[in-house]
């Protein structure tokens, strides 16, 4: 066994292996979960801080759970013994997990004033992954308070700016920065991210990995920081669509502790019988705001997809999608983070603008919030009409590649509308982001997003797998 471990350690051949590949090694006892956890903990320790990807390593928890996985007579499935990282707004309590180490790891929400925040309960997603036998290795970095306070620059975090493994002068994206960079750098096989409006798909696109935003309510948010109750989702960030399916299978399911939790069950179907030739729609003018390489790579993706799908261009009904989601998320965060705002803790946040930008949100009237909620209903009916005719919507995940670390990204985002992001999050729709090439000039990854009806994750994953079976962009990795 030691000889085999040395082989894997010395050749680095464990990194960028899919969940199925690592699972085979564990199941066939070619390597133990303890050894795999040590391997990835070392990678996290050696490289994670370079990318500002780590808040806290969890070696004690990893040691205990991987030993348990190794000693278990029962193999719990594909995630048995597989290590992963956790965005640091998802709580882990050693007390709750009965790990007796005399202390409890902090859950910082990426914010300096909360560096010692500890919970006496563990989030439902972590408990579900424990049942599946997965091994948590680290709490990963994020933009402070999930980016909900109006930050303008990537450095708005307790750990500094999330650095992109493809180019250290570029941002990993937010708010799930550490989840994106850790997976892209091969420091963990997969990670958990969260999204209110873009926080899974954007870092997935910038870091060249596969990210899945599930249907609203499919994954319990109990034990996770609330930014916006009607918009927050937890989802997998990994190396392939198949990996995302395996992870979602473990973390989804009804939870009475999250009152928005859906009773619909997701079971990952590996050989999902996809529609003969699905109808895919693209909003006209969606490429007008995109850079040249994003346009070119998207057009290549459309050519690939047209081999197994019908592609149509459709008009996007005129409606203030971005303003509706902005009003709802600002009003809800004003309430969900009321204690942090009112107590003055926000004055200790890293980004200067995060210390005051949320204060005027208390002036958003109940009338405007309710109007936005009613307009959201109109958006739901617009969305329903689209999906009566079409099975999926596609677009570039982002109009540009990863932005420079010192750039005010609000300036870049202000001029671009995000109808896919605002419609998708308002309607609670699932979407998957798939790497689809590189920018010819700056060599950074570009990405394609596919969005579909609520609870259509099996269809989306099947589409992603089909695309990834005829392209190899998802297998590319940065030089570390």
């Amino acid at each position, binding site marked *: 066994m030691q000889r085999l471990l040395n082989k894997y350690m010395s050749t680095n051949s464990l990194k960028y292996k899919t969940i199925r590949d690592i699972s085979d090694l564990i199941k066939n006892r070619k390597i133990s979960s303890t050894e795999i956890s040590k391997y990835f903990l070392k990678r996290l320790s050696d490289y994670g801080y370079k990318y500002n990807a780590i808040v806290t390593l969890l070696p004690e928890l990893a040691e205990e759970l991987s030993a348990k996985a190794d000693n278990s007579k029962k193999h719990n499935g594909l995630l048995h013994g597989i290590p992963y990282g956790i965005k640091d707004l998802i709580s882990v309590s050693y007390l709750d997990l009965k790990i007796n180490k005399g202390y409890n790891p902090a859950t910082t929400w990426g914010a300096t004033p909360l560096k010692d925040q500890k919970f006496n309960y563990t989030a439902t997603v972590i408990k579900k992954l424990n049942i599946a036998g997965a091994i948590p290795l680290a709490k990963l970095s994020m933009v402070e308070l999930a980016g909900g306070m*109006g930050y303008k620059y990537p450095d708005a975090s307790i750990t500094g700016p999330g650095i992109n493994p493809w180019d250290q002068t570029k941002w990993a994206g937010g708010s799930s920065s550490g989840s994106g960079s850790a997976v892209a750098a091969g420091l963990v096989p997969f990670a958990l991210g969260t999204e209110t409006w873009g926080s899974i798909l954007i870092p997935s696109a910038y870091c060249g990995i596969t990210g899945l935003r599930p249907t609203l309510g499919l994954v319990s948010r109990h034990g996770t920081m609330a930014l916006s109750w009607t918009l927050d989702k937890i989802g997998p960030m990994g190396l392939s669509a198949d990996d995302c399916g395996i992870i979602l299978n473990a973390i989804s399911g009804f939870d009475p502790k999250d009152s928005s939790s859906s009773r619909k069950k997701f079971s990952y179907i590996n050989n999902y019988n996809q529609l003969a030739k699905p109808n895919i729609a693209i909003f006209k003018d969606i490429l007008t705001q995109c850079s040249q390489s994003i346009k070119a790579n998207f057009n290549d993706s459309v050519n690939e997809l047209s081999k197994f799908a019908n592609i149509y261009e459709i008009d996007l009904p005129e*409606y*203030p999608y971005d*303003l*509706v989601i*902005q*009003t709802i998320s*600002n009003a809800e965060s004003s309430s969900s983070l009321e204690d942090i*705002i009112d107590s*003055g803790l*926000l*004055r200790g946040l890293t980004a200067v*603008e995060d*210390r*005051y*930008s949320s*204060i*005027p*949100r*208390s*002036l*958003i*009237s109940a009338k*405007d919030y*309710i*109007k*936005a*909620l*009613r*307009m959201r*209903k*109109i958006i739901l009916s617009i969305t329903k009409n689209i999906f009566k005719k079409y099975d999926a919507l596609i677009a570039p995940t982002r109009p540009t590649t990863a932005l420079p670390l010192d750039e005010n990204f609000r300036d870049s985002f202000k001029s671009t509308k995000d109808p896919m992001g605002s419609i998708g999050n308002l309607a609670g729709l699932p979407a998957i982001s798939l790497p689809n090439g590189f920018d010819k000039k700056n060599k950074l990854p570009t990405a394609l997003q596919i969005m579909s009806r609520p609870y259509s994750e099996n269809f989306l994953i099947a589409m992603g797998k089909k695309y990834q079976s005829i392209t190899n962009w998802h297998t590319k990795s940065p030089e570390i």
Partner: protein
Amino acid sequence: MNKKRIVNASYEILKIKYKNLITDQEKDELKSIISNSNEISDLLREYKIDNSIQPFDATPFE
């Protein structure tokens, strides 16, 4: 002119309500955020919606 007065008045309210959380250097930025928020409010007002569309699907206790 009215819009500017509304922004100024709103800022003064915030200054009273959050007196320990706002510094004078942040005045212009806060006014800009308030103004932007008011513009969004005005834009939302332009959209007329039938009253049959409710904000929540209220249900009785079970």
